[in-house]
Structures are given as structure tokens and as C-alpha cells.
């Protein structure tokens, strides 16, 4: 017995040692892969693009509040910070955080691919440029050259905004080169939720993103040579600009988590019930007056017409019950309209055709483009594209009016007309662009500010998120003055 036990214990140790190699070889996660192919990365990235544009309190929402498009119905304390222009380190910080930690992270994965996937890589570059521009437009200097390296760089430095802008154009040119040279590369298909793998459309979109970047700098002095040079590169490349509204649509449908994000936020839930945001959000008085005053048929498409007629609410109204009690309850005010809230399956717009025309019109007007349609034609095409998207009719009659800021010839200040019409066209769609335009040009002129504002005008930028001060304190600049320190292109 003694011997047996001794040997048994010795034996058990030996057996254990021998079995060890396999025994410990169990550290592979059975539920989550460590790598996936690009066609599984791209659609997620594009869904993130749609979300950063259209989720609750993201870019489009911010633009609509800043540009006095939207206000708040009675019974909701929905937009207190927006009405106070309460720019803090938490105010819309999700734009910064989500862009880097979701959207750009995923496109950066694509941007690391080899030549087998140079189309995917090109898409990655184009979309990175699209998002980095939006970040610069909101924040100015941001992490760029050292960003997105994950464990490789936990505290990326901040790069100069203008330098970033210039590199974005370089990256877009490189993306077009990748597409042109990528003959044997794998072509995306249904996994491309923007263009379904049509690479010629991606080239047009790359040029349109360039157009946006260049136009943004067009008010700067001393920038003309650079801009002309860049427009020449676009012209000689020859793909041209987008020919339709650009949106993300992976197959949005009336199913939980699969609705278009804007519809999901401001429209209805999957059971068909209007969301809280839907009821809380409505037109301002000013925008309705403006649309009515210009005989704009789009009014009933941008805003839902209540049975008693359109009614808007001044931003920052405190007393909703004087002189009439319950005058501004959700049923009585003009909520977001059917031209913008189309359905659960609608595209999530990231760049409208109208904007492309208005950007080109401005380029023409400034003499940066001299070929093709003239500024007036482009301006009218912009209005037409807006009517088309919203489902309104009578564009020609509208822009033929002899009315300042409506008819091209009747408008004293052409730039003001372009920017003002762009403001209407992008209402509810990509309204953040109008905020950037306002900060750059001061148009549309005479836009009211919120009644709760303690400043003379709306903010011109956002604060860096609080998290940057705790996790990247050595690099993040001091918070700028959100009302006076414009982004470089507005100075």
C-alpha cells in the first residue's frame, strides 16, 4: 500500500507534466475572431459614418440647433444646453469620441490593407478624409498623424488644422490613384453600403470631398493659388463630382437596430410610435417665416404641417403658456417634415447633390473653376436637387422669382444667395455644413440667436472633450474661446 501510494503520487506528477502542453493550449476565444476580411469591416464602418452624422446629438442635430432650424415643443426639457450655447467639454463630445473610437478606427483598418484590397484601402482613405475634415471643422487642431495607432500610441499629438487639411487632399488624390491602379484588386459588392462597389462613383465622391475641403478655405486670403492648383488637379483627373445624393444604406429596415439612424432618432420606433425626439423637436418661428416669405414650396416637406397651419417656437422660449396655454404642444407645432423623415429604410445622407452644386457655384463665383456650367446654372441646379430630394415641385418657378436670395439675378450678393440657399437645402440633412458656412461667411445674415444665449452670437467651434485632458493632457491644447476663436478657414 505504501509503495503503491508513493508510486501513484509520483506517477500522477509525471502524467500531469506530460499532459501539460495540450492542457494549457485553450486560450483561443471560441466566440470572437481575431481577424476578419475587409468586406466585414467596410459595412460596419459605413454604418458608423451614418451614425456620427445622424444619431441623437451628433453632427446634423448640432447643425440644426446652431443654424436656428430646430426648436423645442412644450413639455420637453430637451435642448437646454443647445439653447444656452453651453459649450463645455461634454457638449457634443460624442462627435469627437465616436469619430475616432468607431468610425475612423474602422476606416483605418481598411487603410492598412495591402494591394489585394486596394479598392477597400481607397475607400478607407476617402472616408477618413471625409471624417477628419468634419473633426477639423468642429475642433481645429486635432490628433491626425499619430492618431488611430491604438496600442502603438496612447497619447497622439495634435496636428495643425491647416496642415491636416492639406494632407487630406493628398490622401484623396492617392485614393484615386489606388482605384485607377487597382485592376486586380478585390471589388466590393453589397458590403459597400454607399456605392455598392462602383469605384467610379468613389472617384467622384473623392473629388466632391476635395471640393468641400477647398471651398471651405476659399474665404481665406492668400490661398487662391493653392486652391486653383487643386481645382486643376480635379479637372485634369476628369471623374468630376457626384451626380446623385450620397447616403449610407446597408439595407435599413423597420427592425430594431436596423432603422436608418435619423429615422430611429427623430421618426418612429419599430412599432410605429413617434419617438420622444420627434415630439420634442420642431421648427423655429424664424425659419417658417423665412420659407413663407420666399414662397418656398419646400416648407411642407422640411416641416410637418399641423392641422392649424405651421407654427414655430423661438429657440430658448421659457414660458410656453403665454399668451395661449398649450399653444406649443407637439401636435400644434411644425415637427420635422416628410421630405426629411421618409421612412425607416431611407438613406442616411452624408453629402447632398445640392451641396455639391452650391459648392461648385461658389467655386465658379470665386473664379476657382472657370469651365463647365456657370455659377447661376449651378446655383439653380442646387435648388432643383434640393427640391428633388425633398419631394417638392416647382423649383423653377421658385428660383425664377425676382426675390433677393432666391432668384440669382435678383440677388444683390451672390455669395449670400448661394450660402442662404445651401442653408435651406441642407436643413435637416447635413446642417452642420451650414454652421461651418456661417462661421466662414456670416451667412445667412440676420439669423436670430437663442433667447437663452448669454453671448451675441452662436459658437464657432466645440470644446475638446474632457477625456482628452485626463488621458492626453500633455498634447491637448488649452480650450479655445468657443465664440471668438474661429477655425483657421474662418479667420
Amino acid at each position: 500500500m505504501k509503495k503503491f501510494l508513493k508510486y501513484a503520487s509520483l506517477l500522477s506528477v509525471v502524467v500531469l507534466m506530460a499532459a501539460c502542453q495540450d492542457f494549457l493550449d485553450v486560450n483561443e476565444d471560441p466566440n470572437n475572431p481575431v481577424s476578419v476580411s475587409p468586406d466585414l469591416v467596410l459595412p460596419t464602418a459605413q454604418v458608423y459614418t451614418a451614425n456620427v452624422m445622424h444619431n441623437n446629438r451628433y453632427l446634423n442635430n448640432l447643425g440644426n440647433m446652431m443654424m436656428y432650424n430646430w426648436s423645442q415643443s412644450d413639455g420637453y426639457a430637451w435642448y437646454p444646453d443647445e439653447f444656452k450655447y453651453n459649450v463645455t467639454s461634454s457638449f457634443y463630445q460624442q462627435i469627437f469620441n465616436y469619430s475616432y473610437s468607431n468610425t475612423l478606427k474602422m476606416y483605418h483598418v481598411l487603410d492598412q490593407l495591402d494591394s489585394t484590397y486596394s479598392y477597400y484601402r481607397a475607400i478607407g482613405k476617402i472616408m477618413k478624409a471625409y471624417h477628419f475634415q468634419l473633426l477639423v471643422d468642429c475642433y481645429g487642431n486635432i490628433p491626425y498623424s499619430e492618431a488611430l495607432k491604438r496600442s502603438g500610441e496612447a497619447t497622439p499629438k495634435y496636428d495643425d488644422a491647416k496642415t491636416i487639411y492639406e494632407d487630406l487632399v493628398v490622401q484623396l488624390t492617392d485614393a484615386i490613384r489606388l482605384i485607377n491602379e487597382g485592376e486586380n484588386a478585390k471589388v466590393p459588392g453589397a458590403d459597400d453600403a454607399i456605392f455598392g462597389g462602383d469605384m467610379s462613383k468613389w472617384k467622384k465622391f473623392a473629388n466632391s470631398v476635395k471640393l468641400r475641403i477647398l471651398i471651405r478655405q476659399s474665404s481665406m486670403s492668400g490661398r487662391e493659388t493653392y486652391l486653383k492648383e487643386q481645382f486643376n488637379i480635379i479637372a485634369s483627373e476628369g471623374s468630376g463630382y457626384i451626380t446623385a445624393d450620397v447616403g449610407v444604406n446597408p439595407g435599413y429596415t423597420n427592425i430594431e437596430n436596423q432603422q436608418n439612424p435619423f429615422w430611429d432618432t427623430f421618426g418612429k420606433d419599430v412599432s410605429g410610435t413617434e419617438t420622444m425626439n420627434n415630439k420634442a423637436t420642431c421648427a423655429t418661428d424664424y425659419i417658417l417665416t423665412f420659407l413663407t416669405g420666399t414662397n418656398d414650396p419646400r416648407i411642407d416637406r422640411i416641416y410637418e404641417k399641423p392641422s392649424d397651419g405651421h407654427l414655430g417656437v423661438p429657440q430658448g422660449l421659457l414660458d410656453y403658456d403665454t399668451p395661449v396655454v398649450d399653444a406649443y404642444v407637439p401636435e400644434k407645432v411644425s415637427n420635422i417634415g416628410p421630405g426629411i423623415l421618409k421612412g425607416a429604410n431611407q438613406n442616411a445622407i452624408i453629402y447632398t447633390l445640392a451641396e455639391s452644386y452650391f459648392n461648385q457655384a461658389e467655386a465658379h463665383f470665386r473664379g476657382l473653376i472657370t469651365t463647365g456650367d456657370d455659377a447661376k446654372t449651378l446655383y439653380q441646379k442646387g435648388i432643383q436637387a434640393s427640391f428633388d430630394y425633398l419631394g417638392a415641385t416647382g423649383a423653377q418657378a421658385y428660383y425664377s422669382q425676382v426675390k433677393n436670395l432666391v432668384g440669382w439675378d435678383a440677388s444683390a450678393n451672390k455669395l449670400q444667395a448661394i450660402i442662404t440657399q445651401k442653408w435651406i437645402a441642407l436643413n435637416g440633412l447635413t446642417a452642420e455644413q451650414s454652421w461651418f458656412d456661417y462661421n466662414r461667411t456670416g451667412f445667412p445674415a440676420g439669423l436670430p440667436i437663442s433667447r437663452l444665449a448669454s453671448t451675441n452670437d452662436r459658437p464657432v467651434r466645440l470644446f475638446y472633450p474632457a477625456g482628452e485632458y485626463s488621458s492626453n493632457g500633455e498634447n491637448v491644447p488649452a480650450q479655445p474661446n468657443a465664440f471668438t476663436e474661429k477655425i483657421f478657414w474662418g479667420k
Partner: protein
Amino acid sequence: MKKVALLLALIFIGLQVFSQTREITGTVTSAEDGGAIPGVSVLVKGTTLGTVTDLEGRFRLQVPNNAQTLVFSFVGMTSQEVAIGNQNTFRIQLKAETIGVDEVVVTALGIKREKREVTYQTQKVDQGELTKIAPTRVASALAGKVAGLQINVQDNGVNPSSQILLRGMRSITGDNSALIVIDGSIASQGAFDALNPSDIADISVLKGATAAALYGSSAGNGALIVTTKAGQASRKFIVGVNASFTMDKVAYMPDFQTEYGTGWEGAYDPVENTNWGPRFDGTLRQIGPTFPEGYGLETQIVPYAPVKDNLLHFFQTGQTFNNTVYLTGSSDNSSYYISVGDQRAEGIVLDDTYRRNTFRVNATKKLGKLELSATTSYFTDKTDVVGSTIGDQDRPLYWFILNTSANIPLEKYKDWQNPKSYGYADNYYNAYYQNPYWAIGTNRNIDETNRLNGNINLSYDILDWLNFTARASVNNVWGNGKNWRAAQTYNEELQPAHSAVSSFVEDSEFQTKTYTGDALVTGSFKFYDSFSLKAILGSTVYSTDYRGSTIRANNLSIPGFYDISNGTGKLEGTVDESLKRYYGFFGDFTLGYKNYLFLNFSGRNDWTSTLAKGSNSYFYPAAGLSFVVTDAINALKNNNILSYAKVTFSNSTVYNDLAPYRINEKYYQHVSFPFGTVNGFYLDPAAVDASITKEKINTTEVGLNLGFFQSRVWLDASFFNTITSDLITATTPSVSSGSTSFLTNIGELQGKGIELTLGGSILKTKDFKWDVNINYTSNETVVNEIYEGLDEVAITTTGQYGVYAVVGKAFPQMKANVYKRDPQGRIIVDPASGHPLTETGLANLGKTIPDYIVGLSSSATYKGFTVSATFDYRTGHVYYEQGSDQMEFTGRSKESVSANRQDFVIPNSVIETSPGVYVENTNIPVSGGRQSYWTDVYNDVKSNYVKDATALKLRELAVNYELPRNLISKTPFQKISFGFIGRNLLTWLPAENRFSDPEFNNTRSTDPANAVGVGGYLQSPPTKSFGFNLNVEF
């Protein structure tokens, strides 16, 4: 089945009786005062045959003719052996035990050691201490009783959970909870909570990593070594019943204002959840929606006046029945313990119920040199509580209660199912938050858990000096859950602001299988007369395998039918599996000199599955010294004042590894996908350092154990210093890195602390005994270093407040945004609005675990009466009151009426007239004093809700009476005792904390485990419990 057969066999062997016997009798008295000692165990040596003395200290026992020696033993007394010879009557005097000298301590891996040779500090808590107030969970009964141990009871639901911290925290994002070992096998806190407290024999607390070092990678946080009852040694057969009944009542609610009611911006609004209306005036006013004519219900009219305790009355009196029946006994060479427990509880929230059953069969058997023991238990419970994602905002129940204004008679809305009642969804007064009674009926969370545990222990004395022990255990835990919510739509005319509530059903199942095995060879040697050596060599293997799945269906078609087949749209589901394994070899050598000086060395090497091959092996060394001064120095021997003195010194290094699969970054399917045939994945938000490795904990401990007056009074003291380096931490990188956390080895934490225990019998006479035990715990963990360029790591944060690790500060640290102040500390206000300015960053506002904890437990016995109490005082820490934060928005807080809802000048405030120049503000009032100052400005300064977490609690109070034995000697009863029990009957909080129990934490529900210090509306209000218990033995 085989196991059951074996156990039955063991039990039957145990029931054999002797044939050749004679009767002996005697009395046992105290050597000090001559008083009789009842309850002394009288045992025939080498057998389990015995009895206990009665109240007069007398005993009567049938002994076999061949019996040679009697052993008399009693807690606190030195055991005595007496030869039987031909004597038939015995007069025995027992001496008070010199505590700590001969006591045996259960240490890591179940190794029993004499206390004198133990080179680190441990503390034992025995059955009597644990079950004084018939607790349902063991953890709560440990609070205040052990120096170095902090028990945080995190919530007070029907199935509460606790956090068990020994010597504070050592890891920023890793696990800081003490290791739980039950009957020799590594268990979990779940298994600990599942124990029937009646089944526990004792708990040995190994306070530091050194004590637990032989547990390798599990050792870092110290350990609680639980031993369940093996069987009564002194009797043949006992059947006992423990029964208790307690009632739970809300101990206190937050302090509410009762001056203003329903409304917004000073105007009355009949449907508001907030209290920003005009001042109460007692007039009759409409509340809730206006019902159309013929609706069948009159528009509701109530006095515009506060309803006293309107929210308190929502809560009912909870009740708990807790019953255990046990059988225990022994015979020659064997013993057994069998118990069945049943607990039923109703919570303070209507319809919250809990039921559990526990079964245990423990048995031991000695076959010559072989000793076998087995412990098995089965546990099953069912929790049925209100869901935690109520309404279209997915809020917890307490939120709905707090969002009820002061003039609402909340308890009158119970009839929520009746369409013609004010409690019905369309008719309920509140336009924004639903009727909490409706919430209870339409949101349920039901969980069932089962646990089966078996441990087999085999010990064989190969030679006199050589023992082989092997142990195997299996823990199998499985369960299922169902969480559902009913849909609710609203009449748009009556409830225009309400969004429909969607329905869902979520089913979950899980199973965890854990296997452990240990083998030890122990050799004891003596040489050169003065020297001894105890050498242990062993191996251990561990494997734990988890599988869990959930499936969820949304927007159900048939109301009230909660099956996933009833869902519309996409089914959502996940499966999670994980497997972790390790094995290790260890050696432990204790060299003794003259039985007063001991030197211990131990080492263990582990190989783990969770780290990369090549860096998955590591060695844990430990060394210690124990010196019994009073035995070593002749001048100190037999000293009547200082009867015992021992000093210890030890140092150890242990390592922590990772959870499975953490060394790689992974992709996860995005919740929106698949869209048709297109699938989408996202890259892990957490980046992982490619060279991630183990974290290191080094602990040095110095201890002192003193006994005075034959150890009637004793003092244990220890000091420790722990340095954790290469911390495995999910740091917070800049989000622009493309990741929201970064798992890497960083920095250093240093913990230091002192523990003191002073205990003893203050009075001891024949009839009266008064024992007091005071323990003091003080420890603090400071973050020495994190990462170059990184000064803090957020454990949980909203951006405005959170729990952090901050370099140079105690951990965990509460941070929140604060007022901007001038050099004199006065609040700087904006000259335009009168509103205070705030600093851009968050300020460090203090640590969230106490500076020190003082526990006091005391019991006094007079004849059959015993009164015992346990107090616990904690101070020096802060916590975040989430509930009062919310009450600011609803205008229910005391602050919101502190200026009578008028604009006011902030006291002691200044304005900055030019940079650095501050002028006292005497005339610029805050704007929006009616409401918006409070909801938008004051409520945005989150340091307003960081409160002193000091608390003094009377955790336990018991009054017990045991019937004299002579009174029941003619009955079949062996023992009858009964009494009053109370838990948390009194709590003293500082004046500034008017909300809740600072011990409550969100760590069970939403926050990571180390984010101690944030609590509020995810828990119910604190409760106190009181009731009766009864213990009967046949």
C-alpha cells in the same frame, strides 16, 4: 450515484454501537473561580464517543470497558486528558487556555498548523460569531468582526450581494475581492453567498498575500477559508432545528422638501413629475390629465399639500423565514452532518420574492491510517423581482418613485390594471414617468441558480512522520433567467408626452464547471533534539469552464405571452464560452528551533493558459519568521501579566494573471448586423499591449500577538506594506488612438495598513460573563505611478464625476467638477448671471474606501441570557449620491428650497473684476432661482453630490435565552434557545448625508467592481431588520 452510495455506507458505519460498556460520571469546574462549566465536551480518546456537561458541569457517559483516556475540552480552556483506570467518578478542573499557543489554524491548501509556527496573521471566526442574528448570507455577518476585512453590502434586495475586501485594493482594474475557499476547494463569491450559515463550522481569514501564497495566482487578495461542519464529536445523534423570522422595514428615506409641489418654472402643472410648482396652499387642484365627459372617471382632484411620507409608504414590510433542520452525530472513527435549509423572503418592494433551499451531507471516516472525508452540497434558489429597464427610458424602479411629486398620494395608485382607476397607464397623473405599481406588474426579472458541489479528501499516514493527502472537488453551477417587459401604448389625448413602451422577453442560461485537484506529501522530522522540520511538497491543478447564452425577442405579438416565438423582427442572442486552466507545483518548509522559533520558506510555480506561451510560467516565493518571545526568554516564562508574546515577519511575491482570451484584440459582430446577407464586425474598442504579462504583488508583514492574564485579554497587531507593480490595467488612452481602453502593464500601487484586535473577557464570574472584541483597520492604497504622460485612469466616469486612479492620491479616488474659487476659497460668480463658475477639469475629492474601520462586538451572558451586539464605524471616505443628483432635477431636494425658490446672492461669493482681483459679491443674485438655477446650474456641479461616507451602524443585536438543562432534562429536548434578533437597527450618518447608505454601490449592476463609491437610485432605500430565532435540538 456512486458518491451517494459511499456516503450512505459511511453513515451506516458511523451508527454502529458498542456492546461492552460501563457508566462513569463526574463534574467539571473552572480552576480559577471554581464555578461549574456547562457544555464541556467529554470524549473517549481515539473515538468519537462522548457527551457534554450540563448546567451544573456534570456529565454521565457509557464507556467501553477497554476505554483508557478521557479528553475534556471547552472553548477558551486548555484541554485536559485524564486516565480512566478503574475510576467511576471524576472531578476535573479546567484552566483558561493560553490563547494562540496551542490553537490549530487552517492555512492555505487546508494545511493545519499550530498557531505558534504561523509566520503571518490570520483570524478565525467561529460558528457562534456568524449566526448570532441568523443571517441569510455569511458575508454580512462578517462585517465588523475581523480586522483588515471590509464588507460592503452593496444593495438590500431579496438576494443581496456583498463585496469582500481584505486590506483594501491592490489592483486598479483587476479583481480585488478575497479568494473564497470552501472545504479545501477554490470557490467563488457566489458559492459563498449560497452557503447556509448554519452549516459553517468556522472561517479562517488569511489576511494577506503571504498567508495565501500557496494559492498562487489566486492569492493576491488574501483568502477566506471556510470549513463546513463535519459532525458533532461528542454525541451520537442530534436532530436540530434552527428557525428564524425577520421583518424588513425601510430604515430611512432621503430628506425631501415638502413646501412645493407639481409644476414647472413656478407654474402649477397637473402632469409634471417635478416639484417646481407654486408653494403649497392646500387648495384643491386637478392632478393628471383632464378626462373627457363620459369617460367613466372624474378628473382627479387632490389638495395641493404635501402627503406625509408619500414615497416611504410605497414600500411594504418585507419578511424572511429561514429554517434549517440538521442531523449530526458520530461514532467510532466516523462522523456526519446532514442539513436541509429553506429560506423564503418577500422584499420591501411589492411582489419581490426569493426562495432558496440548501442541502448538505458531510461525512468523515477513519480506516486505520487512512482518513476519508467528503462534503457535498446542493443549492437551488429563485429570485423574482421587478425588472431594471422600466419604461421607454429603461430606468430602475426607484427612479419612478423619486420622480413622484410631493403632493401625490402614491400608495393610492395600486389598482393599475383597472381602466377606470387613476393608477391605469392612461389615467396616471405623471406625463413623463409611469406608475411604479404598473412597473412592478409589467416588468419582471426571474432567475434560478443551482449549485452542486462535491469535495473528497483522502489523507493517508504512510509513516508516523509522512502523510499523503489528496483532494478533488467539483463545483457545478447552472441556472437560467427570464427577463420580460410588457408593451404599453397610450391614449394620445390623455398622455401626449408618453412614448410607447416596447415589449421584450430575454431568456438566459449559464453553466460553470470548476474542477480542482491537490496532492500533498507532508513530512515531519525532528533532529538534534532542538530542531524540527515540516516539509510539504505538492501539486495542484485547476480548470474552470463557463458557457452562457442569452436570447432576446422584441416587440411581442401576443400580450402577456413571454416566449421568444412571440417576437417580431430579429432575434438577438449571444453565446459566451470561456475556459481557464492552470497547474502548479509547490514546496513549503518550516524549520523550528525549540518550538519557539520558526522559519518558513515556500515556493510555487504556476503555468497558466491565459498568458502567451513562453511567458505563462512564474514562481511565487515567500519567507517568514515566527518567534514566541515568552517561551524563548526565561525571564518572561510563566509571567502572570504577559502570558504570551509572539512576533512574526514575512515577505512574499505573488503574481496575477489575466482572464481567458484577453491577450488578443478581437472583432465582434455589430448589433445592427446582419443586413440580409451582409455581415459586419467591429474591432475591439480595447487595445491590448502585445507584450502583456503578469502583475506582481509583493507584501511585507510584521505581526505581534500578545496574551495577558493567562490570555484572558489578547492583542493582535499587524502592519503590512504591499507593492503592486506591472499592474494589468485597462488604462484610458486618448480616444484619438482609436481605442477607448488600453490593456497593458503599468505603474505601481502601494498599500500600507495597520490592523489591531483587542479582545478578552472583561468580567467572568460563575454566572456572568462579558466579552468584548474591538478591531481597528486602517489601510490606504496610493497610486505611485501609472504611465509616462498619464496621470489617471478612470474606473467609471460620466465626464462630470467618476471614480479614478490618480497618481499620488489614494485609490479609488472620487473626482467631480467643482466651483471655481478665489485664493480665499470663495466661489467666483459670473457678474452677468450671478451663476457660479466651474473649473474645466475634475477635482480630486477624496477616497472611496475608509481611512479606518472600527468594529466592536460584545456579548454578555448571565445564566441563560446572552445579549450581544456588533457595531461598525467607518470614516474618512466619500461617496457619490446619485439619487440626490436626480432629486435636484425633480425639485424634491432640500437645497432646492433653501432660498425659497427666489433669486439669491450666493453666500461668500466673489466676482473677478480684473484678472486676479476679486471683489465680494453682495448684490448679484443668481438668475433662475425659481427653477433653472437649480436644474441647470447647481445640478451641473457634481461635487454638490459628493458626500461624507462616514457611518456608524449597529449591525447586529441579539438577545438570546437558553433554557436551563435541568428544566428540559425530562423532555426529549437537549437544547432550547430562542431570542430576538436585529440587523442594522440603528445607523448614524453625518448631517450632510441625507440620502442613503454610503455602503451601497452600483458595482453589482452597472459599474466595474473597483468603482466603489457611486450609488443611489439603482438600489432601494436602506432597511433595518428584526425578528426572532429559535434553536431546538433533540
